[in-house]
């Protein structure tokens, strides 16, 4: 957060941005469902904050090493903990797996501290991570209040029971939160939207129908398609991007050529020293140089830097190679792997530098070309601004939505890679109470903070209106006008299944012009279209619901996107309704950017609003010229009054016959 909010154009120094218009989200209460809080952190001081909003009905619950009278304040207004559902499955003691844990809102893990301080932490100056990323750590809505609901427990990396999550929703709705932030997910395959095993879908439905925006992470199972989680249409689902910051390390070879890798290596540089690639001499000449299976000879490795290659993207290849090189007396490691910007320091601040296969191959050819290869590894440096461009993170889970592809997921992207924020002092990676972490967990509270700012500015906007404002105004080009790419193998231009509407643009979302609003009736439309039965829908909504005999189309759910998973030789018409939230007398005309080979028309072609006409419906008719099955093609429909550009993503897949396992 020492850079991410500036990257999103929310610098406190800029006088007219959303931060100032919303008074840093003052008066808004953000509920965080996570691993709890470390209340002594500087990120949760109450300095400069007014009284707790009078509508707040929440409480601070006591527990192990947590005294509400000492630890809650005008910043941390609520702290509850829910463990009964977890304990009933897991049993006591919670620290059986060797991790510290508190039976209280206190956060032993650090994940909850990270997410809460990213959404709403106070300003804390001169924060860095081992000297990297120095700046002011802060939340997006630094004057918003925080209510912590500890539902995840420090067992096996962090586990949360659906019974506890549902209870937290129940209490948070009662307490009066405005926004809920959940960096919690499930596993693929997903449970349906009305299956209580996914406590998040059910609980969030009740929250959203009471005006509480629920923000959830898309999950970290990318870059494969159809991995996105938390896909209910009432949830705001967040993908992770990088930002305009990198941690670069120079690799200078003995032939004076310099390559650049990425690392969090902050010790003194490794001066010119021997460089080694563990060649093998059997039928598989590369076997010895595989990072996760290094076969090293101490007499050859001692005092040298080792090069290895891996096709694994998970961190385990780097950590196991580090251990092997250290054990053999090596002084550094260069790992050639698929690009993945999420970095961690190696144990003991051992120099481990990541490069792509191209750079790795160049280094290998240099080693093979000389008798005494040498290398120098510089310590890492922080680079910000141009020319570093944002990308969708490798790990960020991708659409299409595996429950219903017509419901576009993820909705939006936000920075979630190498985010420096507060943590628990017990976090093994902590540096003076702050740490760099990556995940859609880290992207989610960025959106939660922005939602808090929007709520402060537009208290009457519904969760759907807020989602619409975010999606239709998001950046689909980088800050310098360049394209946004998505990490993967190979890297590609990002599309809506990577980042939804795009990377969030908070200032534009404050003034979207038009919104695609939804209320409970629209969600019932969705549930009927999904063939959930009348009695289940009735109980969910609290009102007797009879889905119409004539089948409703999920394509007509009033989302700020149009995704048509299957079009054949017959055209398809979908309906949307927009609400004017801009100047009352406005006229909007469409700009159509059709997907390749797709014909798109709009009716009416002019949307006229005045003081009495605030909502207008329009129809979009889509036809394909393709004669065969295709993948998804991408375009946009933009409504503009020449001031606002209300862009909705459009994606269409042609299916001339029954598909067979296409994404």
């Amino acid at each position, binding site marked *: 957060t020492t850079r991410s909010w500036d990257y999103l154009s929310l610098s406190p120094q800029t006088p007219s941005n959303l931060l100032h218009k919303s008074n840093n989200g003052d008066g808004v209460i953000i509920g965080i469902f*996570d*691993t709890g809080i470390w209340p002594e952190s500087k990120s949760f001081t109450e300095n400069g904050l007014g009284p707790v909003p009078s509508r707040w009905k929440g409480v601070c619950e006591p527990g192990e090493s947590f005294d509400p009278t000492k630890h809650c304040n005008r910043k941390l207004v609520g702290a509850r903990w*829910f463990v*009964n*559902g*977890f304990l*009933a*499955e897991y049993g006591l003691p919670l620290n059986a797996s060797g991790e510290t844990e508190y039976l209280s809102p206190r956060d032993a*893990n650090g*994940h909850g501290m990270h997410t809460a301080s990213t959404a709403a932490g106070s300003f804390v100056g001169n924060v860095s991570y081992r000297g990297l990323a120095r700046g002011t750590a802060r939340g997006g809505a630094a004057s918003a209040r925080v209510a912590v609901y500890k539902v*995840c427990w420090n067992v096996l*990396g*962090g*586990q*949360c*029971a*659906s*019974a*506890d*999550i*549902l*209870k937290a*929703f*129940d*209490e*948070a*709705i*009662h307490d009066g939160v405005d926004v809920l932030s959940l*960096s*919690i*997910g*499930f*596993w693929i395959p997903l449970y349906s939207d*009305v*299956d*209580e*095993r*996914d*406590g*998040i879908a*059910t*609980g969030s439905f*009740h*929250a959203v129908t*009471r005006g509480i925006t629920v923000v959830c*992470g898309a*999950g*970290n199972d990318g870059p494969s398609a159809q991995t996105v989680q938390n896909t209910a249409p009432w949830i705001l689902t967040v993908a992770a991007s990088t930002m305009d910051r990198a941690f670069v390390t120079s690799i200078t070879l003995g032939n004076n050529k310099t390559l650049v890798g990425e690392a969090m290596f902050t010790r003194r540089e490794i001066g010119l020293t021997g460089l080694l690639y563990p060649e093998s001499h059997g039928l598989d000449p590369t076997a010895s140089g595989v990072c996760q299976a290094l076969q090293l000879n101490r007499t050859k490795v001692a005092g040298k830097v080792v090069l290895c290659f891996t096709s694994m993207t998970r961190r385990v290849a780097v950590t196991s190679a580090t251990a092997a090189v250290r054990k053999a007396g090596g002084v550094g490691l260069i790992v050639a792997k698929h690009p993945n910007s999420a970095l961690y320091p190696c144990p003991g601040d051992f120099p481990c530098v990541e490069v792509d296969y191209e750079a790795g191959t160049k280094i290998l050819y240099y080693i093979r070309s000389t008798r005494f290869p040498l290398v120098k590894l510089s310590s890492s440096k922080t680079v910000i601004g141009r020319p570093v461009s944002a990308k969708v993170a490798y790990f960020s889970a991708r659409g299409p939505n595996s429950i219903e592809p017509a419901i576009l997921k993820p909705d939006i992207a936000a920075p979630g890679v190498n985010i420096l924020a507060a943590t628990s002092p017990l976090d093994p990676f902590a540096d003076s109470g702050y740490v760099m972490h990556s*995940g*859609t*967990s880290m992207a*989610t509270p960025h959106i939660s903070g922005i939602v808090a700012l929007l709520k402060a500015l537009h208290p009457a906007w519904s969760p759907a209106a807020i989602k619409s404002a975010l999606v239709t105004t998001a950046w689909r080009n980088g800050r310098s006008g360049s394209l946004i790419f998505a990490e993967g193998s190979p890297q590609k231009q990002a599309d809506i299944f990577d980042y939804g509407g795009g990377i969030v643009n908070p200032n534009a979302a404050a003034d979207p012009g038009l919104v695609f609003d939804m209320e409970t009736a629209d969600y019932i439309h969705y549930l009927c279209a999904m063939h959930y039965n009348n*009695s*289940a829908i*009735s*109980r*969910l*909504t*609290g*009102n007797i619901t009879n889905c119409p005999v004539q089948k409703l189309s999920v394509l007509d759910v009033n989302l700020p996107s149009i995704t048509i998973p299957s079009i054949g030789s017959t055209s398809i018409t979908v309906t949307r309704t927009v609400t004017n939230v801009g100047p009352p007398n406005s006229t909007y005309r469409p700009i159509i950017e059709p997907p390749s080979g797709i014909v798109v028309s709009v009716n009416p072609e002019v949307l006229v609003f005045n003081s009495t006409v605030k909502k207008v419906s329009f129809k979009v008719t889509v036809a394909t010229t393709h004669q065969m099955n295709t993948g998804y093609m991408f375009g946009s429909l933009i409504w503009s009054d020449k001031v606002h550009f209300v862009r909705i993503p459009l994606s269409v897949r042609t299916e001339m016959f029954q598909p067979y396992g296409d994404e």
Partner: protein
Amino acid sequence: GKTYNVHIVYLGEKQHDDPDLITDSHHDLLAKIVGSKEKASELMVYSYRHGFSGFAAKLTESQAQKIAELPGVVRVMPNSLHRLQ
């Protein structure tokens, strides 16, 4: 058949606004299956009573099946684990 696991008994939107009455109704519902209000209190893990209606309770598989057949019960589901992202 005698193993108790946490199940979520989901009753949908709450029918009135008195949380204590809602919790009482949850105990009554559970007591119908487990035999007494005392036993129901012992097995109750949570009463969901503000944002929606339902409860979490330790139930055997056969108790879970029986409670699912009672009028007003939308669904009975086993508790499950989520993970941090």
